[in-house]
């Protein structure tokens, strides 16, 4: 069958069972959009390319499939960059397709030319500049395989216009031969036995679940292991939802803004089973004081994470789902001990109060959590609202907290919510955001409305950049610089102009009814909450401190 390179690309995407592409057209990618014209693949036109990349990421995280985004050359491609880097830091499988100028003029600085494979090499798992149209089917197959296996991540395919127009004989390959890429799935059996013995001997064990548990769909294996030996569980920010927050063994999130019982537990335990967690700097605080009394078992599919940040006693390289299941088989059942009682007592006395007499942001999250039974898919931006959400929304389902943890990308939440809602049409998707982050990608409200997505937006409006202000309070002796907005738009009117209903609340007693209205409303809805800018996120671990030394903990 003779078809063009662009048609071969679209056909290859169909072979990979791609249902949705998030993208934005342009000159160099014209042949591909022409080929998409007759395809059954749905294309969602976002309002900026960054939105497309984040939407693909949100889609991937909720559906468990590879997300696909597409843009033209030059500025289209560079606008994808933040989204690709965000996906890379959180190990999210996406394939990004960019148009490129024709091969004959590459390197001559022609209109909308940029070296996007060079630019994205540091934060893609792999990337391709397609030189021959015959390679397209193989490259697409490899790209999806690389993106979705091992430690997942973004792969970029850069397709020059003339290559897209070249006619080839199409045949989709059945096999993949990548001699330089062979992810290790099965954990080493002896290491697994060692790990099980360490758990059996431990008096004060603790499981630390990271984003890898969500990615590997290992939440059931985790639950079984924890319950069998009554091991308490903490999560990292990215591990939020991997263990049900309403479970008696759940302690909470650890880290710079981790909850007090969780951070204290880490300091006291004698064994940490880190599952799909990479001991990020914001998670462990001062590296050499992290879990000083504990031996460490580190389960990760990426060998490069083992021993990168933290000394490890028993490393296990493998798929966390498989490894946890194997460990569970070998672990002896154990009843609750004093250790469990100690942690329960820590959990009893943790509360947080509002500084002002106004709206307490934590109370909003708590009520939302109750009213949705912890079952909504929550996306966030980056800032105070993100930390309050991770701390206080009781996520009971894996892959339902969708947030930019590694890169910390403001503007992630709204487009990610669009992708998430496209993946699960029947689940309530709520973007919790601050006024700073929301203004970075609010144009995507149009995408949501255009596609009839009943997205909910809860906007914490403090008229500035709360978390940066908090940093300046602690690290810059309150020299607040560029953290207060001199002008803030009327967000309810703004939403109305997009056809999104909204309301604004200022008092504690309005919370319940407002949340009811948001939840019951059929279409998209924006709830603006006036928050005092002095509302800080506590606990807070200062940089250079161990995580059990918390301010406000």
């Amino acid at each position, binding site marked *: 069958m003779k078809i063009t390179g662009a048609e071969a690309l679209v056909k290859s995407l169909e072979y990979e069972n791609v249902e949705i592409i998030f993208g934005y057209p342009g000159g160099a990618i014209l042949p591909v959009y022409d080929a998409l014209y007759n395809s059954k693949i749905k294309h969602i036109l976002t309002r900026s390319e960054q939105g497309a990349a984040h939407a693909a990421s949100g889609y991937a995280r909720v559906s468990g499939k590879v997300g696909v985004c597409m843009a033209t050359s030059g500025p289209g491609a560079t606008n994808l960059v933040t989204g690709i880097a965000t996906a890379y830091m959180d190990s999210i499988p996406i394939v990004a397709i960019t148009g490129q100028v024709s091969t004959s003029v590459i390197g001559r600085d022609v209109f909308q030319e940029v070296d996007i*494979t060079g630019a994205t*090499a540091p934060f893609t798992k*792999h990337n391709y*500049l397609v030189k021959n149209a015959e390679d397209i089917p193989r490259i697409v197959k490899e790209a999806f395989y690389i993106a979705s296996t091992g430690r997942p991540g973004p792969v970029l395919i850069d397709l020059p216009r003339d290559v897209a127009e070249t006619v080839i004989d199409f045949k989709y390959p059945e096999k993949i031969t990548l*001699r*330089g890429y062979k992810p290790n799935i099965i954990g080493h059996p002896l290491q697994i036995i060692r790990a099980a013995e360490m758990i059996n001997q431990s008096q004060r064990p603790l499981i630390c679940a990271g984003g890898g548990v969500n990615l590997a769909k290992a939440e059931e294996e985790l639950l079984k292991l924890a319950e069998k030996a009554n091991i308490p569980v903490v999560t990292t920010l990215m591990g939020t939802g991997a263990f049900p927050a309403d479970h008696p063994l759940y302690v909470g999130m650890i880290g710079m803004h981790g909850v007090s019982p969780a951070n204290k537990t880490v300091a006291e335990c004698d064994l940490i089973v880190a599952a799909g967690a990479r001991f990020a700097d914001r998670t462990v605080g001062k590296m050499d004081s992290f879990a000083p009394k504990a031996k460490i078992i580190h389960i990760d599919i*990426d*060998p*490069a994470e083992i*021993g990168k940040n933290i000394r490890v006693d028993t490393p296990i390289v493998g798929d966390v789902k498989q490894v946890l299941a194997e460990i569970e088989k070998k672990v002896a059942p154990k009843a609750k001990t004093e250790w469990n009682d100690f942690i329960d007592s820590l959990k009893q006395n943790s509360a947080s109060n509002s500084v002002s007499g106004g709206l307490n942001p934590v109370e909003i999250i708590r009520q939302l959590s109750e009213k949705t039974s912890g079952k909504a898919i929550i996306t966030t931006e980056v800032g105070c609202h993100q930390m309050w959400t991770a701390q206080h929304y009781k996520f009971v389902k894996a892959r339902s907290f969708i947030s930019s943890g590694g890169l910390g990308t403001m503007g992630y939440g709204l487009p990610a919510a669009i992708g998430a809602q496209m993946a699960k049409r029947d689940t309530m998707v709520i973007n919790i955001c601050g006024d700073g982050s929301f203004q970075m990608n609010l144009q995507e409200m149009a995408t949501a409305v255009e596609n009839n997505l009943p997205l909910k937006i809860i906007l914490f409006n403090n008229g500035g950049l709360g978390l940066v202000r908090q940093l300046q309070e602690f690290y810059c002796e309150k020299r607040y610089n560029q953290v207060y907005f001199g002008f803030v738009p009327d967000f309810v009117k703004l939403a109305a102009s997009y056809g999104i209903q909204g309301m604004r609340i200022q008092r504690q007693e309005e919370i319940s009814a407002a949340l009811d209205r948001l939840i019951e409303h059929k279409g998209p809805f924006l709830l603006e909450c006036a928050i005092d800018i002095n509302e800080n996120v506590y606990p807070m671990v200062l940089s250079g401190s161990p995580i059990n030394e918390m301010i406000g903990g």
Partner: protein
Amino acid sequence: MKTTLSVLVENHPGVLSRIAGLFSRRGFNIDSLAVGTTENPDISRMTIVVEGDEYVVEQVKKQLNKLVDVIKVSKISPEDSVTRELVLIKVDAEPHMRSEIIQIAEIFRANIVDVSRKSLTIELTGDKDKVKAFEELLKPFGIKELVRTGIIAINRGTNCIKVEEE
């Protein structure tokens, strides 16, 4: 501490820049890097001398292995290997100095590859120590220019660094 790594990579365009980029963005120091195709023209072999402690070398190995184009990374131990570097040195050589320089070159089994009225260009192959000693001896004559290939290394005996065929 210097460690020599032998890295087998796909002979694709852009591979060198991926590897160089990896070193710079992760803050690893390259002492030297030499690259060329192997007995299999689809595969290139890079010999990279890395500066760093055990932790750094371990991270370099693991991060290199994460690159899809990298097929195999092996550490080469100095005891069980032969390492060589080729240098071209242009020295000041007025006619009355020539014979002395040529004598030194002969002792080192170096070749004179170019002669002009005021200079000699010498080619020397050897391990790091030999090259260094040679360079020291020529310094007093005035080294005008020096260019080196970077170290390449191969294991002694039948031990080979190869891609396992499936």
